[in-house]
């Protein structure tokens, strides 16, 4: 039973490292985003851009789910969620 969980854990870890993907990703509430650009300035991977001055969009391929943007967003509309 325990070994079964262990195997699953190892498989998941390998899955993420294989595709260079993190477990988390940033998601934005586009209808409430004020497009201030704080997240874009904060992101260490340059994964965020402001779509035509309307709202922030996260490039899923670049985001590592570090959550820095969530902590910086003054409106509290950026969220770190499970990928």
């Amino acid at each position, binding site marked *: 039973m325990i070994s079964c969980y262990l195997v699953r854990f190892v498989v998941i870890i390998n899955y993420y490292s294989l595709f260079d993907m993190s477990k988390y990703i940033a998601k934005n509430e586009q209808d409430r985003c004020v497009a201030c650009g704080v997240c874009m300035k904060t992101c260490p991977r340059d994964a965020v851009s402001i779509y*035509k001055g309307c709202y922030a969009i996260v490039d899923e391929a670049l985001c590592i789910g570090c959550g820095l943007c969530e902590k910086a967003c003054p409106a509290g509309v950026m969220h770190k969620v499970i990928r």
Partner: protein
Amino acid sequence: MKAKKKKWSDYLWIVSATYFTIGFFNIVYAWLGTICFLIPLLMATFGGGKGYCNNYCGRGQLFLQIGNTLGWSRKKVAPRWLSSKWFRNGFLMFFMFFFVQMIWLTVQVAHGLEDLHQTIHLLWTFDVPWHWAYRTPIEPWMAQFAFGLYGIMLTSLIVGVVLTVVYRPRTWCVFCPMGNMTQMISRAKA
């Protein structure tokens, strides 16, 4: 993780700090504040989106300096209603009411119907004496506009700094009238 490389535009908070400092001593320079109203609107109108807010607004950067560099911020997220449509648009109307009132006073002074008020209207409530800043003799209406504009700018700075300390840096930007207007223009064009 490497630190992000700074661009020249990351130092525009110095311009903003200079603006507030020289305006404090000589009100004529308050006129430069019209730039902060015209550039963002022009940028948004001609397809630049919120490029002003995102890269060039010195006031927004000033809040980041105070909150992040100096660390004067609790970094707690502000109440959610601050980013609601009704509050943002309501605040825009509230702001516009005082802006129009300021223009109206300028017009009246220009026509000699009102004397020049050498005061700064702060936080939409207090008339603070500011006569020491009236050094260069200019047309009374020009001086009136300068006093009015400086009051608006200083009010937003005070509110913004308080919000930065209590909540997160740039919480002001959530409902800043300029930010709201440029986003509206961007949405209409997108």
